[in-house]
C-alpha cells in the first residue's frame, strides 16, 4: 500500500478526538504531549513506516516501537486501537480500575506495547539494548529473524541487514534532561546501532514551564552530533508529508549503512521534530499548563468542535 497523506491526516484527526475524549472520560492524563506527538505517531503507524502486524504479536521481524515518554500513553493507545490491536471502544476505560489502558503503558496488560514505560529516560535505553539484541540474533542466524543468506549480507556481522528489524523510540524533549538518555546515546553509537531510530517530540515545554527556562537541552541536534549520531530535523512535526519524508530518509540511510557494514560504521539516527504542545486544540496549544490536566466537559465539546467532530 502506498503512502497516502490525506489518509494519514484523517487517522491523526481521529486520534486527536480519541485523545481528547479518553482523557476527559478518565478525568486525568496528559493531553499536551499526546497531541504534539499525534502526527508523528499517525505517520509511523499509518504512513507505511513501521512494519507491524496487529494479528501476529510475536512476529519476530516486526519493527519495535517504544514510547519512552510514557506519559503520552493516550497517543499510543489511540494509534494501537486504530491499528487493530484492540477495540477502539476500550479507549473509554483509560486509567480506570481493571483497564488494560493503564495511566502509563503496561506491556504485561496491553497488546502492542513492547515494554512498560513511564519512568523517563528508560525507554530509549531499553530500545538500545533491543536494537543490539536484534542485531545479535540476526548475526547468529536465529530462526527468530529468519535470515536469508542469499542477499545483502553484512560483512561485519554475517547478518542480512535488510532483515534486521528497526527499533523506534519516541522521547520528549524534557526527557533529555534525564542523564540515562545520554548514557544510552553514548552506548548506541559505540555499538553502531544503525537499526535504532530515536524520535524527539520537541514541543519546548515541560510541566514546570519552558525547557529553555527550566534546564535547557538545546541544541538537541548538536548534542546528538557530538554523541556521533546521525541527526535529522523535521521542521514541521505536524506536516505528515515532511514527517514521512524524514522517516523514510532515516531508514534508507540506515539500511544503506547497515548493508555496507564496516567500515562505514552505521550510526544510530535521531530525528528532532519541531512540534506544538497541545496541537489541534486552540486553548491547549503552547500551554505548559496542559501537560497533565484533563479538559472539562465544556472544554471537551469545544475541542471536539475544533477537531471537526
Amino acid at each position, binding site marked *: 500500500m502506498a503512502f497516502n497523506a490525506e489518509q494519514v491526516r484523517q487517522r491523526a484527526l481521529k486520534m486527536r478526538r480519541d485523545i481528547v475524549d479518553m482523557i476527559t472520560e478518565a478525568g486525568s492524563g496528559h493531553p499536551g504531549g499526546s497531541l504534539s506527538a499525534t502526527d508523528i505517531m499517525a505517520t509511523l503507524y499509518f504512513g507505511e513506516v513501521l512494519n507491524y502486524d496487529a494479528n501476529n504479536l510475536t512476529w519476530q521481524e516486526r519493527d519495535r516501537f517504544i514510547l519512552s515518554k510514557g506519559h503520552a500513553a493516550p497517543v499510543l493507545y489511540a494509534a494501537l486501537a486504530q491499528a487493530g490491536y484492540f477495540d477502539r471502544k476500550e479507549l473509554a476505560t483509560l486509567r480506570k480500575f481493571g483497564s488494560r489502558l493503564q495511566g502509563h503503558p503496561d*506491556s504485561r496488560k496491553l497488546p502492542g506495547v513492547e515494554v512498560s514505560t513511564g519512568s523517563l529516560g528508560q525507554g530509549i535505553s*531499553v530500545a538500545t539494548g533491543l536494537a543490539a*539484541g536484534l542485531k545479535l540474533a540476526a548475526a547468529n542466524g536465529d530462526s527468530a529473524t529468519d535470515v536469508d543468506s542469499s542477499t545483502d549480507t553484512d560483512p561485519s556481522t554475517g547478518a542480512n541487514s535488510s532483515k534486521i528489524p528497526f527499533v523506534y523510540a519516541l522521547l520528549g524533549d524534557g526527557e533529555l534532561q534525564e542523564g*540515562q538518555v545520554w548514557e544510552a546515546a553514548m552506548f548506541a553509537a559505540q555499538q553502531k546501532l544503525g537499526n535504532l531510530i530515536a524520535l524527539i517530540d520537541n514541543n519546548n515545554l515541560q510541566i514546570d514551564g519552558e525547557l529553555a527556562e527550566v534546564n535547557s537541552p538545546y541544541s538537541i541536534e548538536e548534542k546528538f552530533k557530538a554523541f556521533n549520531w546521525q541527526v535529522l530535523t523535521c521542521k514541521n512535526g505536524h506536516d505528515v508529508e515532511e514527517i514521512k519524508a524524514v522517516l523514510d530518509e532515516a531508514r534508507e540511510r540506515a539500511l544503506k549503512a547497515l548493508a555496507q557494514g564496516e567500515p562505514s560504521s552505521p550510526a544510530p539516527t535521531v530525528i528532532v521534530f519541531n512540534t506544538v504542545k497541545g496541537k489541534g486544540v486552540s486553548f491547549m496549544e503552547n500551554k505548559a499548563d496542559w501537560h497533565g490536566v484533563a479538559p472539562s466537559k465544556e472544554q471537551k465539546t469545544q475541542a471536539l468542535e475544533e477537531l471537526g467532530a
Partner: protein
Amino acid sequence: MAELKTDKTADQKIEKKATRAAYGETLIELLNEGIDVVAVDADLSGSTTTAKLAKVAPERHFNVGIAEQNMICVAAGLSLAGKTAFTGSFAVFGTGRAYDQIRNTVCYAQLNVKIAPTHAGISVCADGGSHQMVEDIALMRALPNMRVLVPADYPSAKAALRLAAQTSGPVYVRMGRSNVPIIYDDSSPVTTASTLNLGTARVVREGSDVTLVACGVEVDQALQAAELLAADGVSAEVIDAFSIKPLDEKTILESVRKTGAVVTCEEHSVIGGLGSAVAELLVEQPDASVLLRKPLQRIGVQDRFGTSGDFDELFAEFALDAQAIYNRVKQL
C-alpha cells in the same frame, strides 16, 4: 568460653574461593549448553568475572562503561530480543544506583533479566563504606516479581546462577568479593549444591537447642559458631537460607518448632534482609506466641555504614563473626 580459631589453615587446609569466581565461568557453561545468555557489565567485568564470557563470546558481552542505569535497561532490551540477560557491576551500584530501572523496567514488565552483581556486603573490605552494600537484599526483596538468591560459597553461587538462567523473569543473585570456605561438595546428595532450588533452604548442620538461619558468607561463620557451641554442649542447627525470596518457610519452621530459639545471621543490614524475613514468618504463625521460647536474635549490620578494614577486623567490628554468633547464643 571457647576460643575461636580465626585461621584454621594452621591445622587444616580449607579450600576457599569467592562466590564471584562462579560468575563468568557459569555463563560460559550455560552458553555451551545452548542457553541464549548475554552479560551486560559496567566497566567492572574483570572484578565481576563476566570478562571471561567476553573472551569466548565477545558478541554476547556488552560493556556499557560506567553507566549502571543504562546497564539495567540495555539488559532489559536484550531480554526483549529473546536473550537471557545478566547484569553485573558491584552490588552497591548494580542495585542502588539503578533501583528505579530495576523496579520500573525489569520488575514491572517482568522481563528475563538477572540482577547479579558482586562485591556485596561488608566483605568488600578495604574499599570501605561507600562500596559495602548492606541494603541490597532489602531493596530487592521488596520488589514484586523479584526472586532473591544469596549463595554461601562458590558451588552454591554456580547453582544460583544456573537457577537464575533457568527461571523466567527477574532474579537477584548476591555475590561477594572475598574468598570464603567451600561448604558444598558433590560427594553426596546431602552435600551437593546442585539440588538447591528457588524456595529451598538447606540444613547444613543438624542440632536441637538453637537454630542459626544464615545466608551468604555468614553460613560459614554460623558453622564455626556451631563448633564453638558444641564444645560447650550446645547443639546448634545451621540452616543455609540460600533462597531469601521465596523463603523456605517449611524448613525454617520445622527447625524452630524443634529448637524454640532462632538467631539469624547475615552480612547485611538487620533492616529488611534475612532477619526481617524470618521475623515476619515467625510472628505470623498461628502458634507464634509459643513458637519461640527465647526472643529472636538478629546478627547483621546494626543500621550503620561499613568502613575500611580486613575481613577479620570487620567481621569482629560489626559483630558478624563466629565469636559474635556464639556470644549471642550464649546470652539467650
